[in-house]
């Protein structure tokens, strides 16, 4: 009995819990929570088993189901690919999903929410979709579950549908990501049309499209490039797929849905931000990294989008008053870092940050959720304060998460973010254009430190500033347990890849890098080493040779500066709002650079009037012509019938007249005159 025999069950277990919650959830004791917990726990155990098996030097690929088994044309299938990357992601997703389910007992059940079967059904489907997406073996299957993830986010963000804001936010989330998915779908169709396959890995007799692309670039394979040069066409395809990534991972300019998505229940926010929807985009790039690594243009675009988003979102986070909003912008910003890493070929750093971020961001969201429960659903930080003593477990775990987010030694975020910045700098020194991305990412570190600790100080320190904060109630085990688990992980997860330490001591401790490089077992070609070669040889991006220590110190110093500034400004029993000092910039940041307004304007003042015009045109001109034909016939008939007077005299006159006319006509024609 091998671990991989149960691989399909990793995704199917949450699907079963979805079905149970949907059908009989309302009769169950916890309204569907218990099957969900059991299913995600099962998925977690199976995932860990899979990781162990991968560590034992295996990988797994199986075609589960032929969706379309065409012989004469393209065929499509569902299959499973478990390699180091997907195995690691499976564990992260199922772990976070499990903890979110447990936390929901406290956040939803204990608070007496209604509609819980729907909630747990949504969570189950969400987990199922994400897990299936993670181990999808081809691009089409990935796209399908990518879309299902979008559906689940719609259902869960709009969970409280009786109010006005959540359905609107849900709509926005789906629509904005759909806009990205439009490009993604063209990309999927294009990849299949170009390569005839969407496989990520060359296994079991399949050929993967990244390898076909590589061969085509080298002139060894013949693919349909639709009239473009191979490199141009691959860049176009990569950009199209990147559209979906930008939408789901909330990168500029499609990030606007994410802050609105805070209308959903907080555990859902944790799930969306840490492990499922937002992570899906970045994961997709990592999954098909062999394709992106082929084009320096694509890499540069990814790096710049990432760097810009990291900085851009961090500035907005600085002025927000809602604790969940701050976290939302931090998510956008952190995914920006991962994009920077992917853009500079730092596959390990991106995956590393994806993992540590999953832990500390889930922790922060669940911590915020705990605060929200305790303060009777207060989310404004200015109405909190002084919660440190009332909620010690929450405080300490939240602090760990914040330190990780800010990138302070030795918490996990420091190690991963430092590696991102270090790798960006290495590429940037050799290819100056990438230095811009590095600079933006480095500047964002300062803002991150600042807003994180502004949030911590306002929420937990000082004096309580409202009755709710004063009367914060105690929390149950089901809230504390996930916090503690994640707190530990957020603190120690960074130790698996301490690059500066390795450099200092020479000890071989870059476990994550070895893991992703296939030291334990991997599919050939899907390893860090292979990608590195592609980035260096095919894309031609060389790396500078400097040690990780100095860049690490710089990053740490910048982060500490941000934290220190927050400390100076807000470590006060009665903190003041300092945001006014920013002047016009504050308004700009507070209003998200008027991005939402721009998009709403685009929808309301461009698309809608256009559709109204089209409607007027349709009703007026096109239907007007149709009705016009009818009216002309009717009026013509009406006029024509007037000669039917009903008077014999008139008919006789017409007959006589006709006779005369005929006679005259014959006379003229016959030549009588």
């Amino acid at each position: 009995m091998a671990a991989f025999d149960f691989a399909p069950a990793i995704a199917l277990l949450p699907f079963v819990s979805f079905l149970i919650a949907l059908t009989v959830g309302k009769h169950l004791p916890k309204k569907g929570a218990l099957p969900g917990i059991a299913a995600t726990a099962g998925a977690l155990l199976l995932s860990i088993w899979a990781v162990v098996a991968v560590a034992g030097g295996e990988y797994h690929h199986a075609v589960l189901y032929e969706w379309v088994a065409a012989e004469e044309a393209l065929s499509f299938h569902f299959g499973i690919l478990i390699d180091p990357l997907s195995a690691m992601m499976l564990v992260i997703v199922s772990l976070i999903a499990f903890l979110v389910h447990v936390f929901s007992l406290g956040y939803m059940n204990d608070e007496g929410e209604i509609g819980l079967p729907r909630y747990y059904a949504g969570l189950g489907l969400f987990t199922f979709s994400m897990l299936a997406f993670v181990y999808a073996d081809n691009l089409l299957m990935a796209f399908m579950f990518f879309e299902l993830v979008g559906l689940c986010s719609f259902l869960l963000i709009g969970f409280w549908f009786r109010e006005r804001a959540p359905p609107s936010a849900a709509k926005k989330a789906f629509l904005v990501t759909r806009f990205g998915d439009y490009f993604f779908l063209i990309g999927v169709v294009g990849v299949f049309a170009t390569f005839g396959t969407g496989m990520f890995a060359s296994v079991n007799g399949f050929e993967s499209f990244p390898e076909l692309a590589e061969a085509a670039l080298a002139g060894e394979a013949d693919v349909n490039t639709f009239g473009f040069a191979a490199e141009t066409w691959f860049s176009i395809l990569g950009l199209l797929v990147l559209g979906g990534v930008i939408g789901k991972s909330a990168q500029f300019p499609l990030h606007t849905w994410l802050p609105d998505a805070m209308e959903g229940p907080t555990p859902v926010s944790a799930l969306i931000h840490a492990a499922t929807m937002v992570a899906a985009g970045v994961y997709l790039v990592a999954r098909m990294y062999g394709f992106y690594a082929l084009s320096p243009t694509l890499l540069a675009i990814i790096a710049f989008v990432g760097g810009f988003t990291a900085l851009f979102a961090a500035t907005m986070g600085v002025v927000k008053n809602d604790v969940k909003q701050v976290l939302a912008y931090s998510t956008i910003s952190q995914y920006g870092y991962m994009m920077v890493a992917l853009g500079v070929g730092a596959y390990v750093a991106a995956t590393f940050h994806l993992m540590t971020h999953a832990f500390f961001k889930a922790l922060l969201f669940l911590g915020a959720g705990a605060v929200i429960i305790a303060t009777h659903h207060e989310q404004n930080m200015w109405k909190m304060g002084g919660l440190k003593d009332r909620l010690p477990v929450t405080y300490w775990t939240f602090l760990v998460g914040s330190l990780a987010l800010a990138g302070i030694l030795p918490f996990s975020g420091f190690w991963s973010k430092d590696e991102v910045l270090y790798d960006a700098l290495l590429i940037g020194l050799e290819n100056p254009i990438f230095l811009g991305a590095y600079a933006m990412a480095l500047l964002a570190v300062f803002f991150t430190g600042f807003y994180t600790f502004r949030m911590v100080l306002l929420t937990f320190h000082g004096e309580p500033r409202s009755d709710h904060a004063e009367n914060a109630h105690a929390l149950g085990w089901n809230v504390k347990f996930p916090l503690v688990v994640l707190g530990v992980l957020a603190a120690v997860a960074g130790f698996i890849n301490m690059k500066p330490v390795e450099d200092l001591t020479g000890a071989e401790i870059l476990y994550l890098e070895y893991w992703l490089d296939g030291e334990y077992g991997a599919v050939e070609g899907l390893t860090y080493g292979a990608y590195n070669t592609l980035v260096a040889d095919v894309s031609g991006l060389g790396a500078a040779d400097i040690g990780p220590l100095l860049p690490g110190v710089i990053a740490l110093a910048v982060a500490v500066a941000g934290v220190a500034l927050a400390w100076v400004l807000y470590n006060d029993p009665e903190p003041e709002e300092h945001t006014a000092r920013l002047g016009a910039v504050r308004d700009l940041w507070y209003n998200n650079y008027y991005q939402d307004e721009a998009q709403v304007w685009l929808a309301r003042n461009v698309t809608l009037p256009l559709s109204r015009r089209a409607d007027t045109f349709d009703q007026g001109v096109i239907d007007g012509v149709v009705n016009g034909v009818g009216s002309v016939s009717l009026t013509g008939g009406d006029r024509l019938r007037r000669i039917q007077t009903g008077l014999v005299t008139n008919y006789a006159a017409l007959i006589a007249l006709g006779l005369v006319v005929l006679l005259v006509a014959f006379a003229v024609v016959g030549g009588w005159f």
Partner: protein
Amino acid sequence: MMIEALIAVALIGSLVVLASPDRYAAQLALAISLIPVAGSLWMYSAFDGAGNALLGGDIAFETGPITWVEVGDYALQWHMGLDGVSMPLVVLTTVLTTLAILSAWTPIDERQSQFYGLMLLMQGSLIGVFAALDFFVWFVFWEAVLVPMYFLIGVWGGPRRKYAAIKFFVYTNVASLVMFIGFIALVFSLDVTTFGLPEITAALEGTGPTPLATAAFFAMFAGFAVKVPIVPVHTWLPDAHVEAPTPVSVMLAGVLLKMGTYALLRFNFTMLPEVAIEYAPFIVALAVLSVIYGALLALAQRDLKRIVAYSSISSMGYVLLGLVAYTVHGVGGATFQMVSHGLISGLMFMTVGVIYNATHTRMVTDMSGLADKMPVTVGVFVAAAFGYMGLPLMSGFAAEYFVFVGSFQSDTLPNHGMALATAIAMFGIVVVAGYLLFAMQRTMFGPFELETDYEIVPAPVRDVTPLLVLLGLVILLGIAPDLIYEMIRDAVSPVLENGGDL
């Protein structure tokens, strides 16, 4: 003889129901309509056809050709049979008729026996349209569909039913005339002695785009385009849908529109591929226009039924795009889209009907927060809407994906123009999401409000049952498209070979 048996059951059933008292008509019609469902499902399971019925494939359940009447040099023949294209459409017809009859129980409360009688009459004619392989028999059934439809809209419809019914009838009838003239002119130029579609197809093979063939192609194209409908001959559709009662809308969107696309595939694209390819730029432009323009129009509507009606125009644009691609997935996907759209749009109309039964309004601005009052119905509506948007694992995604892949690969346009056209047409999936999400947000969610003062209670089980059945079918086809896609591919492949080197 199975096809004749199905048609006979529907026609005799229609007479029986017409003669029965109003009180029992609904139950009786439902019971009778179950026989064709069972029959067609059995035929599906026993289907042994291969290839395309017009291109010398093995025709399943074939009867004839038996010469019926001799007119001059020509013999009119009774020739029926199914291939992979028509089989799914026959099943679609029978299943949707039964569900439409079930969904009519609540809204139809007068002249029931006539209503259900006409529904069965229409079903019989529709089966005939999809199964007939002789032009004249086909044309008789084709026209026979219009008559019950005219009365169903004109008698049981909304306030402007007469306008809508006459518009529908005149529009489609004039179109049939144009098509008839074009086709007959084409046939008279050929050396054939029957009006059998396979014979005509064989006689046309390799004749190329002669002026007569081109003229006939466009006459037929115009005739079928009205039925589909393709922009700019679409304006009868929203009026007909808005005025028609729910079950009739279901049939109209679910099956009647497919007559147009089915005929396009059978006549224009199978018989005259050279002309179709010659004028592909024009056809592709119409397809893209239908998709984008139809979606834009849907965005401007405030009546739920009008929204769904306009979105049908958009979806039918994909069918045209797939047909003109002349690739397996293009033509096959177009056929799959016919079935899929039949199910999903039928589902949408039914759900809107159930909501209308409760609220007595369809205006988006008149209601909000229905989810609280009718959870199951709204759940189905949300699912159906996502199906319409092309959510994976539902049939809409499968259909659209096949069409996209097929047309993206197509070489019908020079310089990979099909890829570009496909990319543009795909933008429809964003707009469709826009208006459906907007409509859902306004009507289903938020605090409960209703302009018309009716008390909203959850829909009765008999109204919800057809919704759940259809939703089940939509998901089933989304997960296992090969249930019908395999026979469709088998039947459309010869069409591609007929199209020359494509």
